[in-house]
């Protein structure tokens, strides 16, 4: 007892910083050291931004998501109209999204005037022909920051504010995937390379804490409760090569899936598109055996497909970039097993455990006889902090209603699947 009191007194006398803080590795922002207080957090960030930026101008990269919007609200408090909000329309945002974000930001309480820069053709060019997920992400990042750098220079902004949060750099530094908004933590010198100094007020927070800050700042439910949308946008949901017709189909599917799942209590839900090109792999028969054994079915009631395009996962804290498999049961029993998602997730666990090369397992909801170019995957997850994620236990009638609508209205789609893979071993997004 005495020892502890003495120790604490000497500790409190010397400084307020945690004793651990002194040896935090360079380049890694310290996470909060005591329980999280929203009011203190906002106060300290506002005053820090004020003292760093002083009377200069800062540009903020807006996506319309909760992170960048919350960031904008904090920095706006600090420097007022010296904050210049900009949105880069990459062509990989959802239908009408840039305009909707501009309208929403212009309303109280934010009342920000958003500049939209149309840059679709630059991104199409940068991503043309690239199939590998990491290469796509890096090409996206380079294009994005080159454009941001140009615009910052034009507007006379020495600072660029962005809404990078803790899971972004944890995943990037852990080698799971390159988040486009992680630069300094990778040793990229932004001032030399792009001409601006970064400010990242939320870099120590998790998503649930960002939402607490957003609610405290009263930026509106439309932003504070908005489901996350990846920085590279639909790039990472257009699996493999990206090109206009594939992207167009994905945008249409995204709208239908988001609308169909809005009230199902999921933290994130969206559509993914894959080409119907399959591998003729040894895996097929082994997975088929594994599925029929697990569900006690005849092998001829189960068919398995291995997609040609790869997806990202995380197995044992390591990046896994591998195979996507689709499981299809014959029609009469599809609904029976589809009605028990928990059981399907157990099946998935067995498959991803037995086959190291498989990172995702999809369950066929519906298909059409005539072959078409694409398959659409519905992804829906529940999570607190996006570090782990559970598959949403969606009712079968909801899934089959959305699948039916997709097949009816999109001639280029011949199959719709539900992704039954938690994180781990998958990540939330496909790439």
């Amino acid at each position: 007892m005495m020892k502890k009191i003495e120790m604490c007194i000497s500790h409190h006398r010397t400084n307020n910083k945690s004793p651990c803080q002194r040896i935090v590795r360079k380049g890694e922002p310290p996470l909060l050291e005591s329980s999280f207080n929203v009011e203190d957090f906002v106060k300290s960030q506002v005053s820090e931004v004020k003292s760093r930026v002083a009377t200069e101008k800062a540009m903020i990269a807006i996506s319309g998501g909760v992170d960048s919007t919350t960031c904008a609200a904090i920095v706006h408090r600090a420097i007022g109209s010296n904050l210049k909000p900009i949105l880069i329309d990459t062509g990989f945002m959802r239908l009408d999204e840039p305009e909707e974000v501009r309208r929403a930001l212009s309303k109280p309480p934010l009342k920000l005037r958003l500049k939209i820069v149309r840059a679709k053709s630059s991104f199409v060019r940068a991503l043309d022909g690239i199939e590998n997920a990491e290469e796509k992400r890096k090409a996206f990042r380079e294009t994005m920051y080159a454009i941001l750098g140009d615009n910052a220079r034009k507007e006379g902004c020495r600072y660029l504010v962005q809404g990078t949060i803790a899971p972004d750099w944890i995943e990037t530094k852990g080698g799971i995937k390159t988040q486009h908004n992680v630069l300094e933590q990778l040793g990229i010198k932004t001032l030399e390379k792009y001409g601006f100094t970064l400010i990242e007020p939320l870099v120590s927070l998790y998503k649930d804490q960002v939402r607490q800050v957003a609610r405290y700042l009263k930026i509106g439910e439309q932003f504070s409760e908005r489901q996350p949308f990846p920085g590279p946008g639909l790039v990472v949901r257009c699996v493999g090569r990206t090109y206009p017709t594939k992207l167009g189909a994905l945008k249409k599917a995204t709208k239908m899936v988001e609308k169909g799942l809005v009230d199902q209590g999921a933290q994130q839900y969206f559509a993914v598109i894959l080409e119907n090109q399959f591998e003729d792999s040894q895996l097929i028969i082994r997975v088929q055996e594994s599925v029929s054994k697990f569900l006690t079915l005849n092998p001829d009631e189960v068919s398995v497909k291995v997609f040609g395009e790869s997806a990202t996962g995380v197995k044992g804290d390591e990046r896994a970039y591998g195979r996507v498999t689709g499981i299809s049961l014959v029609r009469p029993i599809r609904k029976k097993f589809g009605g028990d998602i928990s059981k399907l997730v157990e099946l998935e666990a067995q498959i991803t455990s037995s086959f190291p090369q498989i990172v995702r397992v999809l369950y066929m909801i519906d298909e059409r006889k005539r072959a078409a170019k694409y398959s659409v995957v519905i992804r829906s997850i529940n999570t607190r902090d996006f570090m782990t994620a559970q598959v949403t236990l969606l009712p079968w009638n909801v899934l089959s209603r959305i699948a039916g609508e997709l097949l009816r209205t999109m001639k280029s789609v011949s199959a719709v699947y539900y992704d039954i893979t938690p994180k781990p071993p998958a990540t939330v997004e496909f790439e």
Partner: protein
Amino acid sequence: MTTKLGRCLTLIIPVVNVGGQYNHLIARMFTELGAQSQLVPIETTIEDVRKMKADALATGGGPQRIKEALREGTLGNLPNLVKQVDIPLLSICISHQLLGVIYGGDSGPALAPEFGPVEIVVDAEDDILQGLGPTFTAWGSHNDEVVRLPQAFIKLAHSENCRIQAMKHEKNPLYGLQFHPEVSHTEKGRLVFQNFLSVVKR
């Protein structure tokens, strides 16, 4: 006076960052439970830990395969630190495997790797798993596991595909967990940390 005492008794628990995705969540969990916690690098020495006046130490997961990493020396000072530590230790995932190897057990490829939800069967509702029996759902993410229990250790839990999900030293407050109590999807994960804090306060 009581309030002052209360504040002064804040426990200090550094978390060695072994490179895994969830290391930060360990520190977050401790801080949410009122302790002072932060990540420290894998090079941290026992002297550093003493200088911090740490009351306990936690070590997280990472992408390494333990035996390969020990051979190649890619674990920084962590093996020394685990040997020398004289305060309560909570080691998770590959740190648990490291603890096993250092105390004379063995680590190797799992019978079947576990990713995502796993049902944990509690064999001994001993201090750290108090209130978690008979079974609970935890999340795992591992390719290797402790395949032979070190002599001075007691097995506390297992799962269908993993022989040693939790273990403790028979005399000293040294704990190893293969599953991840720090992720929000592990049922009662917080209780594991509360139990550990009770051990630290003892």
